[in-house]
């Protein structure tokens, strides 16, 4: 198969990756919506924030890994790539296995992401449009169908994001979630500043007191 050095292919893969990332990022976004709806007082919001941090740090990467591996093994492409009409094929035309998926995703993606994603940008230079992860796993991404669906899907998911963010902000304002968080933050800041101010004032006072005591002692000794 002859490959043309086609920059459109790179941007198609980029669009597919963007769609997949936005799809997976819906999990924490929907959780934020849930927190905003369910919070009755500011403590609930703070606990919700703790859970959100946990989701982002410890849960999301498992979801991403399982999504990438399962879609590759079952459909030879993620949802974003399928919408872009792309498919991941083994160069030797053999069936994709779990081992291939593990080599391509956690291992291959890690290698490609070194030095600011050099392995991903390599797709632009490579004659077969392969990134480091493709070379490592022995795969190649080919175009099988129409790519129009990815742009429509991207437009849809952007609109969904705008709607969700707008809803979260509006609901948060109505329920006083943002003002509660803002007030808590400002109160904490003011109290910490006042404590710092008092501690520096008390240090100055104690220095003044010591100076006065020393002066009094000297005077007494002279007398």
């Amino acid at each position: 198969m002859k490959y043309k050095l086609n920059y459109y292919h790179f941007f198609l893969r980029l669009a597919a990756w963007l769609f997949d990332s936005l799809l997976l990022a819906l999990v924490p976004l929907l959780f934020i919506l849930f927190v905003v709806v369910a919070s009755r007082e500011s403590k609930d919001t703070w606990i919700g924030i703790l859970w959100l941090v946990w989701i982002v740090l410890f849960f999301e990467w498992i979801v991403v890994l399982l999504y990438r591996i399962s879609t590759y093994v079952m459909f030879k492409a993620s949802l974003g790539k399928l919408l872009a009409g792309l498919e991941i094929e083994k160069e030797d035309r053999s069936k994709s296995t779990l081992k291939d998926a593990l080599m391509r995703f956690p291992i291959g993606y890690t290698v490609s992401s070194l030095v600011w994603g050099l392995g991903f940008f390599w797709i632009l230079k490579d004659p077969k449009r392969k990134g480091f992860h493709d070379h490592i796993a022995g795969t190649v991404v080919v175009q099988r169908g129409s790519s129009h669906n990815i742009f429509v899907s991207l437009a849809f998911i952007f609109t969904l994001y705008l709607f969700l963010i707008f809803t979260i902000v509006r609901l948060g304002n109505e329920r006083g979630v943002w003002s509660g968080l803002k007030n808590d933050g400002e109160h904490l800041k003011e109290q910490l500043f006042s404590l710092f101010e008092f501690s520096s004032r008390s240090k100055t006072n104690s220095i003044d007191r010591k100076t006065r005591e020393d002066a009094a002692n000297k005077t007494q000794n002279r007398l």
Partner: protein
Amino acid sequence: MDYYSILRRSWEIVKKHKVLWVFGLVLASFSGSTGSGGGNSSSSTKDLQKIFEQKDQIPPQTGEKISQILGAMTSDPKAFFLSLIQSIPPAFWVAFVVGVVAAVLFYLVLGIFMRNWAKGALFTLAAEADANNEVSLRKGSLQGLRAWKRLFISHLILGGGFVVSFLIIGVVIAIIFGISSIAKFLVLVPALLTIFAIFAFFIALVVVMVWSVYTDLSISLEDMPWKRALKYSWHLTKKYFWQTLMMGGINIGIGCLSSIIVLVVLGLFIGAVVVTGLTGFALRNVIGDPTTLLVGLPLVGILLVALLAVLGLFGGILQAFTSTNWVLFYGELKKQSEFPREGDKGDKSD
């Protein structure tokens, strides 16, 4: 042994075959220790503690004033945080611990695999490049996959054996110290033993390092099982210990030289940042405040990104170079007539 020709040939190979840089990058990224970043946390906790203790020194009328101004929230940040922590459900703590354990395990396993996979790939590709064969990421990846498990097991045994031996020695010395506190005439014995143990520790460390180099090379280049590789490499260690130490010394010297280069680059970067800052400050006086941010910050950001990329690549190239040195050194040893082959006396397969 012509070390200069090894270095020259190694540099040619690394310069020509940029594929080696990729595996060098991976090995460099996953070989370093994570380092302890925890030193600062204890001091910041102490500062916070001081703040909370000094809160008691605030006169009562100030406390009342604060609560009037600020309204609903408690005037005591410590009490607020304590009540927040108490209201966190137990399920969160369980999920937090499970999340931390899972993340640590995942990164540990990934790190072990990546390090050994990249090492196996790098050694094999360097040998292939030296033989003027084709080298590629795919080829290296497959070779790394073949070798990683054996490399890991052999390192576990060498490292584990080393640590256990010195733990046993430490326990024995501690027992003798205990006995000498009762029988005073024995007081010199544990002291002498301790001095001896320290020397033995450093010598054993060097021996184990040399042994592990030969084990890695035997597994990667000769495709040996780990047990046989350990036995075979022990014979090589005994036979070529001083020559290997010399090669190791050269590699360490190259590492030190590269550290100096890194420091120079960092110095240039800091200089560039200072110049950028001064330029922005000068412009601010002429044009206005936002210019400093508009000009200075993006420039510093771009410089930082470029610097990190350069340093990362440099680390990868260095790792590829030192690994290729070992492969070529091993190749030179093999050319010698007295080089022990597999199946020679003392190399019985298991």
